[in-house]
C-alpha cells in the first residue's frame, strides 16, 4: 500500500470529507495554497475545491473559533484550525463555555458538529509558548471529545470520524509526527472515537500512551524485548471519552501499568488513567502504578534542558525494567 505522511493524511481526510459533504469547510490561518497551513495539513484543498471553502482569517483566535461555533450551530460542519494549540487560551470562552455546553443547554435542539484542529506538543526546541500539551484541560470538560492520533493511518480515520461526529471534537496533531509516513488507504475510512488500540501485544506490563509518546513507547517496547521483557502498548487515541475497557483488560493481563505522558502530571490524563486502574482494576495490580511525565517547569528552549524536562524513551525502559524485575524477584 502507498505510504503518505501524517500531514498528508490530515489534508486527504479533509478534502475527501469536503467532497462528500458540501457543509464541511475549513477556517484558519493561511490554509490556502500555496502555503497550505503551517505544517501542510490543508495543502491542495483550496486548489482542488476553490478558495470559498477554505477561509483564511486574521490572527484572532477568539473571533474565528467563535465564528466556527456559530456556523456549526446553524447547520455547517466547520473544521477550524489553530496554528498552535497553545493559542487556544485566547479562544477558551468559545471552547469551554459555548461549544461544550450548547447542545446540553439548548435541550438538544442544536448540535455543534465542529472540529477544532491544532498542532500540539514539544521535543522541537520551540520554547514554552509553542510546546504545550493541553488535552487534559479539555478532557476535564463534559461535552468535548478529545482526539490525538499517533500515526498517519489513525490521523485520517480519526479525523473523518471527528468531522462526521455531531459533537464538538478537539483534534490535536503532534508536531513531531507531521512528516512521519505510514500506509494509508486512499479511500475514506473511519476509526471510532473513544476506542483505544493495542499497538503492540505483551504480557509483562502495560504501557499506556497517546499521540507522539506512542512511537516512543514502541521504541521502548522493542528495547525491552531485547532484555526479555514483553511490554504491551495501548494507544488511547481518544483521551475523552476514555476507553476504560481496553486499558483495564490489558492491565488484567499484565498486572503492571506505566502511563507515559509527554506533559505535566498533576490533574492530567495520566493521573486519570491511574485513578481508573486503581479504582476499577485494583485486584489486577501486581506493582504500584508508575507515571512517567514531564517535570513541573515551563518547557525550556535549550535542547539539553528540554530533553531533561521531557520524558524520554530511556526513562520508560528503565522504569519498566525495574518494575518487572522487582516483580519477578521470586
Amino acid at each position, binding site marked *: 500500500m502507498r505510504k503518505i505522511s501524517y500531514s498528508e493524511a490530515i489534508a486527504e481526510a479533509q478534502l475527501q470529507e469536503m467532497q462528500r459533504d458540501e457543509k464541511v469547510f475549513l477556517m484558519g490561518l493561511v490554509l490556502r495554497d500555496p502555503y497550505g497551513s503551517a505544517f501542510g495539513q490543508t495543502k491542495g484543498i483550496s486548489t482542488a475545491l476553490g478558495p470559498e471553502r477554505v477561509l483564511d482569517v486574521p490572527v484572532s483566535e477568539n473571533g474565528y473559533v467563535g465564528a466556527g461555533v456559530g456556523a456549526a450551530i446553524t447547520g455547517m460542519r466547520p473544521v477550524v484550525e489553530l496554528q498552535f494549540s497553545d493559542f487556544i487560551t485566547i479562544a477558551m470562552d468559545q471552547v469551554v463555555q459555548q461549544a461544550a455546553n450548547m447542545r446540553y443547554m439548548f435541550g438538544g435542539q442544536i448540535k455543534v458538529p465542529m472540529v477544532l484542529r491544532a498542532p500540539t506538543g514539544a521535543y522541537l526546541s520551540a520554547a514554552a509558548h509553542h510546546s504545550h500539551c493541553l488535552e487534559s484541560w479539555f478532557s476535564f470538560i463534559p461535552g468535548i471529545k478529545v482526539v490525538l492520533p499517533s500515526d498517519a493511518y489513525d490521523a485520517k480515520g480519526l479525523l473523518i470520524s471527528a468531522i462526521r461526529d455531531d459533537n464538538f471534537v478537539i483534534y490535536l496533531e503532534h508536531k513531531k509526527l507531521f512528516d512521519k509516513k505510514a500506509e494509508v488507504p486512499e479511500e475514506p475510512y473511519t476509526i471510532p472515537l473513544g476506542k483505544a488500540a493495542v499497538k503492540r501485544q505483551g504480557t509483562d506490563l502495560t504501557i499506556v500512551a497517546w499521540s507522539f509518546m506512542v512511537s516512543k513507547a514502541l521504541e521502548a517496547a522493542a528495547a525491552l524485548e531485547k532484555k526479555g521483557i514483553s511490554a504491551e502498548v495501548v494507544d488511547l487515541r481518544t483521551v475523552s471519552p476514555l476507553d476504560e475497557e481496553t486499558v483495564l483488560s490489558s492491565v488484567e493481563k499484565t*498486572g503492571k501499568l506505566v502511563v507515559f505522558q509527554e506533559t505535566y502530571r498533576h490533574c492530567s490524563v495520566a493521573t486519570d488513567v491511574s485513578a481508573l486502574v486503581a479504582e476499577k482494576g485494583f*485486584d489486577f495490580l501486581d506493582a504500584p502504578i508508575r507515571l512517567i511525565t514531564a517535570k513541573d517547569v515551563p518547557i525550556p528552549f535549550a535542547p539539553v534542558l528540554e530533553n531533561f524536562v521531557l520524558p524520554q524513551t530511556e526513562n520508560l525502559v528503565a522504569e519498566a525494567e525495574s518494575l518487572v524485575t522487582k516483580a519477578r524477584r521470586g
Partner: protein
Amino acid sequence: MATPVLMPKLGLTMESGKVVSWKKREGEPVAKGETLLEVETDKIVSEVQSPQAGFLLKVLEPEEAEVKVQAVLAVIGEKGEDISSFLAAPGQPSAPAVNAPAEAAEAPSLPAAGRLRITPRARKLLAERGFAPADLEAPGVDRIGEADVQDFLARQGQIRPMSRIEKVAAERMTASFRDIPQFSLRFKAELDRLLDLLPHLKEEAGRDITVNDLILRGVAIALSRFPEVQCQARGEGLFQPGSVNLGFAVALDRGLVVPVIRDAGGKRLAALSREAAELSERAKEQRLRPEDVSGGTFTVSNLGMFGICSFVPIVNPGEGAILGVGGIQSVTAGRVVELTLVCDHRSVNGATGAGFCRELKSVLEAAEEAAW
C-alpha cells in the same frame, strides 16, 4: 522503642494459641532471642523469643489464656517508655500503624509485627486459593507480589477438579469396593507357544498383534465356555448375559475408560485385535461413543507394559468378574504371565472362577485357538 510480642502463627490452620508459661517476669531484663514464654497449639508447644533486647515492660496475657494469632502478648522496651498504645485493646491483633516504625527501624527478625505489604493481585490470587497473606513467610521481600504467591502455591500442592471421566470412575470404584464382596484367584499361564507364534501372526495379519490381543482372544474363548463367570448380582436376582462383551481398561492422561468389544466370543484374533486398536485410539482421542463403553460383561485390565508382576483389580460394577494381567516373566520353565481373576462372590463362586481360570490357562498355553 517499645515493641510488642505477638502470638505467632505456628501452622497454616492456627487461629489462636494458649499461653502455657511465662519464663520472664514483668520488669526483668531480656536479651534479643531469649525465651519469653511457651505457647501451645492443638499440635505443638513452642517457645516465643524476645524480638529485641530491653525489659519485659508488661505482660498482657496470663498463663492459660487463649490468645488470637498476631494479638499482643507482652511489650518489650526501655524502662519508663510510654506503652499505652499497646494496652488499649488486649487480645486484639495489633494495629499496623503502631508497629510500622519498628519494622522499618530494627526488627527485621519480626516480620509479623510489621504491616505485611502485598500487591492486590497477589492478595486476590491467595484468597482465590483459600490462603491469607499471613500464611506466607517472605523474609527479605519488601512487598509480596504475584511471583511470590505463585512460588508459595507451588509448594502447597493443589486440588484440581475431577474430569467427568474421573468422577464417574471414582463413584463406580467406590461403589464396587463398598458393595461387592470380592475374592481373587491368582494363577500363571505359560505363553511360550503363543509368543513363538507372534511374529508369524503379525505377518499374517499385516498389522501389529499385541500380547494383550492374545490375552483378549484367550479370555473371549474361555468366557464362551465358562459364561457363568460373567453372572451378575442384580438386586435379588442373578443375571446371566447371553453374549461376551469384552471390556478392556485404557488409561488416559486424566482417568481411565473401559471400551467394550461386542460379541467378542465369535471374533477371530485379527478382528479382535483391529477392534481393540480402534477403540484404544478413540479412547485416547476422547472420541468414544456411548455404545463403545456400555454393555460390558467382563473386563480385562493389563498392567504388564508397566512391569507389574501381578495385581488385584476391582470388579467393574455391573459385571461378575475382572481379570488382572501382569507382565511376561522369563523363568527357567519359559515365559510366564501371572493372572488374577477377581469375582463378585454374590454371583460367582470360587469353583466357577477357578474353572474359568483353568480353561483360560489351557487356552493360552495350547496357543492354537488363541492364535486363530
